[in-house]
């Protein structure tokens, strides 16, 4: 068997190379390669920016990393998005200038929100102060909820703010401020495994770009319905060109649709999750409400009148 291994490996490699070559011949493969290169540059920049080690004098690295990340962000915005719609494709060169005059506000809002989200995400993982990290996380969530709002997912955006920004990040802040009033501990201003995390992020975003490309290719071939796999930018373009999209006539569409989806289509899942959350709450109360039997501490600490400072 071992003797066959080189042959097998060679055949595998040649197969992969064939696939790669055929992928290169796809209409938008140049674009994908460019996006991947840009992503790699961004990943390297991020790696340079991540806080490592004890010494804080790595200013040069941070500046180079920030420059690389900014450059990749700017370049990414200028990459043409492959679309299946001929009229849109002919009108646009890059995503940045792809919006018509009537939808320019929407387009720029999208870009502003996306840039805010990405930049704050980078700041979140590269800042050494945990309070700052939590705050940048809150900004990321705000940007994301703005993007949701732009896509018409009003309920999702409000829920993101209420649940994440309004409750969870506030709890983070509460814990950070309560636990470290005098300053952050060492493990809080050093990134763990900066190389691995950068690589993972790079792979994830590459897969995302590839999927975008794949879905666009499907559209070109007519392999899927247009509504389901359209890239988001196109949905913005389309929905903003719809007549009078600001005054929607069916105002109850989103929340009612969400309610129907949750409580008709996925009612069992909702119930199961509800029971799970209830169990978690009961468990938390059980743990928190357990009396502590510390030595030297009276079990009740209070006498019959409920006053704990009175001698018995």
């Amino acid at each position, binding site marked *: 068997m071992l003797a066959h291994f080189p042959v097998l490996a060679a055949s595998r490699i040649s197969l992969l190379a064939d696939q790669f070559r055929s992928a290169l011949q796809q209409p938008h493969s140049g674009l994908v390669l460019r996006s991947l290169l840009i992503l790699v540059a961004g990943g390297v920049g991020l790696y340079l920016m991540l806080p490592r080690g004890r010494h804080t004098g790595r200013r040069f690295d941070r500046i180079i990393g920030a420059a690389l990340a900014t450059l990749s962000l700017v370049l990414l915005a200028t990459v043409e998005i492959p679309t299946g719609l001929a009229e849109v494709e002919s009108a646009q060169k890059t995503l940045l200038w792809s919006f018509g005059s009537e939808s320019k506000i929407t387009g720029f809002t999208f870009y502003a929100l996306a840039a805010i989200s990405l930049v704050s995400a980078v700041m979140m993982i590269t800042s050494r102060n945990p309070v700052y990290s939590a705050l940048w996380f809150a900004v990321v969530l705000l940007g994301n909820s703005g993007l949701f709002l732009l896509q018409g997912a009003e309920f999702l955006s409000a829920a993101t703010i209420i649940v994440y920004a309004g409750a969870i990040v506030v709890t983070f802040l509460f814990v950070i401020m309560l636990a470290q009033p005098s300053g952050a501990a060492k493990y809080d201003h050093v990134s763990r495994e900066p190389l691995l995390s950068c690589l993972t992020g790079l792979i994830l975003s590459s897969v995302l770009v590839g999927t975008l490309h794949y879905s666009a290719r499907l559209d070109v071939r007519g392999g899927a319905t247009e509504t389901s796999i359209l890239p988001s930018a196109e949905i913005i373009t389309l929905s903003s060109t719809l007549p009078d999209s600001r005054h929607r006539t069916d105002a109850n569409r989103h929340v009612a649709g969400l309610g129907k989806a949750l409580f008709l289509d996925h009612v069992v899942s909702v119930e199961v999750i509800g029971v799970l959350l209830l169990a978690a709450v009961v468990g938390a109360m059980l743990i928190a409400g357990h009396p502590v039997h510390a030595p030297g501490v009276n079990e009740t600490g209070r006498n019959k*009148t409920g006053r704990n*400072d*009175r*001698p018995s």
Partner: protein
Amino acid sequence: MQPDSKQIKWVDEPKLGLAGRLYLTPLIDGLSLTARHFFRTARGEGFTRQFPEERPLFGNPLIYRGVHRLNKDEQGRVKCVACFLCATACPAHCIDIIGTESPWADREKYPQSFVIDELRCIFCGMCEEACPVDAIELTSLFDLTGASREEMVFDKEKLLSVYDQTCDLEPMRSRGPAAHSGPPPGKDH
């Protein structure tokens, strides 16, 4: 004191009745109390005096301890004989006197300069008590203000002008023996 000391008397909280435990009556009590006060003031039955327009009236302005004055005698001269008793009695050390030979026949000395730092003064009235000739007195002027520290250091002229300002409303508390005849009253006893 130890918590189990016999001197501490422990008092139990009063038991709440049914009305108290409903929480409603205490809450309504609080609301009605404030509402009563609100409407009483709104009807104009408050206690506020409009200060700069309405001067407060003292029951007896002679016993109020406000700004000092240096009294003058009948001939318009300062009554002070520069005996330094007030400066000695002053607990805040705010009185500063320089005495010289008096040009008048009825006394040996008179104050060349008489300075009271009103910012250091605690308005205790000891100077007034100590003065043998009733030359220094505290008036009922209470709204003493100034824009600088220097302005609040009163010299002899200013203290005498306070006398001119207040002598009609508040006469000198005791005339004493006439200053121009006989020895100074401080030496009587």
